């Protein structure tokens, strides 16, 4: 399947549905969405106005789905979408959009612009205009099993380490376990503490859980690049794994987009409702807390704040649980301005962090996070997404800010006392 303008246009046409048609007809060019988008606010460049990122799709919509537009096209009054134009738009649709959904939360006429960008990416990738970094990540996920090229032996090595460090066995392919725990490559490589934390939490809660040798990677680069066919292949692995092991719940790791891919897009990609539940680890922890299965001791005493991953909070509806959990272990917690539903993106979501040529813009956009942090001056920053964490670590380093970042799950686990009978 080679990419071409013709294919891109055909896919774009297929993507246009009633919501998109309604959104295009409603836009009054008020520019308010720009004020919500960190790529505009931090650069002041109007080309980063969210709705402008959809311009080729809007023209195509008019030309194909409206009477007057078709008429204009027939008499040559409207410009057809060209390959060069889509090429020019690649930067706008990928590098400068993290699908954070802030624009969708503010547009006065109600346009869900992030929804449109997600669909526009399908046409962009079909036309061949998607970033190499993402293309590579998709190929690796489909062929090798993870976007960073990690294979099962690496996961097994991780498991061994954790088993040695924590003196617990990490179950693999255990049929009938209640929970299937998914990981993101980032956690396997950069934040191995996550797996240990899960083991501790599950032991305390007395729950059965397992990893799956055929499906351990939760992130979905196919969704990020906008290729539903490949996104389906990736999600299908998890569905097959979960069904084979007969688990009740699949736990999405600390990764916002993995959560969206599994929780909201997954069933639509495979074309049928899931036979299992999907929860973000934060939701699971909150459930344990409410059921009295999560007990911590001791408190963190330094000044902390929390960065809400967009896909977990604004696009995923999980806002209070992380705060309830933080209350258990943090004494000196402070919210950043706009925290929660309107939190600002780290600048690297939606696959943007995999785009090398987007780095300069990303660091520019990070000024927004920086000013949020400057308002609170925390000693440490807590979050619940490994991708946010890496992007923010890069930003902090660039701006020479010395601020350690911790994952929420790992912080909670540190406060779980060792069982009395443990050796």
């Amino acid at each position, binding site marked *: 399947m080679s990419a071409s303008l013709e294919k891109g246009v055909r896919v774009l046409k297929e993507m246009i549905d009633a919501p998109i048609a309604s959104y295009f007809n409603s836009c*009054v060019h008020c*520019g308010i969405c*720009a004020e919500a988008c960190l790529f505009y606010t931090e650069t002041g460049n109007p080309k980063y106005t969210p709705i402008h990122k959809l311009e080729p799709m809007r023209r195509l919509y008019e030309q194909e789905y409206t009477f007057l537009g078709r008429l204009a096209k027939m008499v040559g009054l409207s410009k057809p979408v060209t390959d060069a134009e889509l090429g020019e738009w690649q930067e706008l649709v990928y590098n400068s959009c993290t699908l954070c959904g802030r624009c969708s939360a503010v547009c006065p006429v*109600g346009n869900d612009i992030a929804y449109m960008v997600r669909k526009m990416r399908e046409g962009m990738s079909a036309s061949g205009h998607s970033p190499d970094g993402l293309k590579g990540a998709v190929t690796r996920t489909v062929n090798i099993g993870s976007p960073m090229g990690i294979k099962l032996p690496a996961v097994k090595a991780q498991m061994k380490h954790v088993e040695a460090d924590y003196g617990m066995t990490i179950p693999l392919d255990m049929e009938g376990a209640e929970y299937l725990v998914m990981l993101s490559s980032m956690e396997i490589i950069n934040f191995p503490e996550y797996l240990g934390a899960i083991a501790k939490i599950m032991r305390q809660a007395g729950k059965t859980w397992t990893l799956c040798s055929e499906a351990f990677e939760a992130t979905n680069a196919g969704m990020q690049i906008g290729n539903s066919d490949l996104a389906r292949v990736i999600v299908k692995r998890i569905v097959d794994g979960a069904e084979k092991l007969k688990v009740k719940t699949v736990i999405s790791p600390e990764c916002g987009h993995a959560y969206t891919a599994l929780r909201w897009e997954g069933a639509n990609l495979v074309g049928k409702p899931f036979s299992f539940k999907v929860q973000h680890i934060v939701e699971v922890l909150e459930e344990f807390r409410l059921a009295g299965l999560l007990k911590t001791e001791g408190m963190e005493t330094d000044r902390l704040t929390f960065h809400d991953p967009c896909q977990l909070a604004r696009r995923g509806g999980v806002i209070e649980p992380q705060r309830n959990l933080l209350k258990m272990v943090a004494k000196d917690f402070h919210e950043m301005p706009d925290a929660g539903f309107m939190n600002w993106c780290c600048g690297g979501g939606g696959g943007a962090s995999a785009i090398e040529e987007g780095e300069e813009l990303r660091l520019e956009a990070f000024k927004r996070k920086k000013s949020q942090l400057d308002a609170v001056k925390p000693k440490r920053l807590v979050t619940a997404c490994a991708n946010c964490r890496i992007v923010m670590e890069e930003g902090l380093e660039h701006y020479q800010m010395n601020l350690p970042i911790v994952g929420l799950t790992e912080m909670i686990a540190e406060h779980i006392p060792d069982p009395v009978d443990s050796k």
Partner: protein
Amino acid sequence: MDHLQLLTWARGPGLDLSLGVLVLGVIWRLIEIYGLGRKQDLSAPRDVAGASGWNTIIRRSVPPPGMFKTSPVSYMGGYIFHIGLAIVVFLFAPHIKLVQGVLGLAWPGLPSQMVDFVTVVTMAAMIVVLFDRINKPVKRYLSTFGDWFTWALTFIPLLSGWMAVHHLLVPYTLMLAIHILSVELLLICLPFTKLFHAFTVFGSRWYNGAINGHKGVPV
């Protein structure tokens, strides 16, 4: 054709024609847009109170936290001119009489001095948002012919109506004819220009609210 004949045409065949185009145009456009449909969402919904299309239709009428101060002119200007327009269109006694003639429906109006005041405020707000559109880089960047055109389409009926009431510039009969004709032009253009957001705004807010409401997010 003298002024009176023009006025008579505007009030008779002109009105019928424009109303006809409006009604058929709106129906056509609504089918064209909403007939596209959308796929059913197969993911398991999360139920949260206040997260639905209907909620968003209402909620989006007020700026989300922190947004007002980023675009005060757009928000204030937008409120004033939309509300002002609604008052002038629906609460001016002669307008109500016209509707009564067509549909047989009537409701109490506002004193004409009040409507006069609202008209002036509305026009002022429209001029301010026009300047904002020229002034603000993002708005200027986004603006197309359609934005300027629909601004004029909305402004001319207000101005001509106000001038007719005050017997300014040209004889009353002519100004009234111009007023009615400009409204008719507005009605004819409404389904096919940006003005159609007057209808789709409800659909758009509803979809946004419903799609995100499925995820338990009250947007």
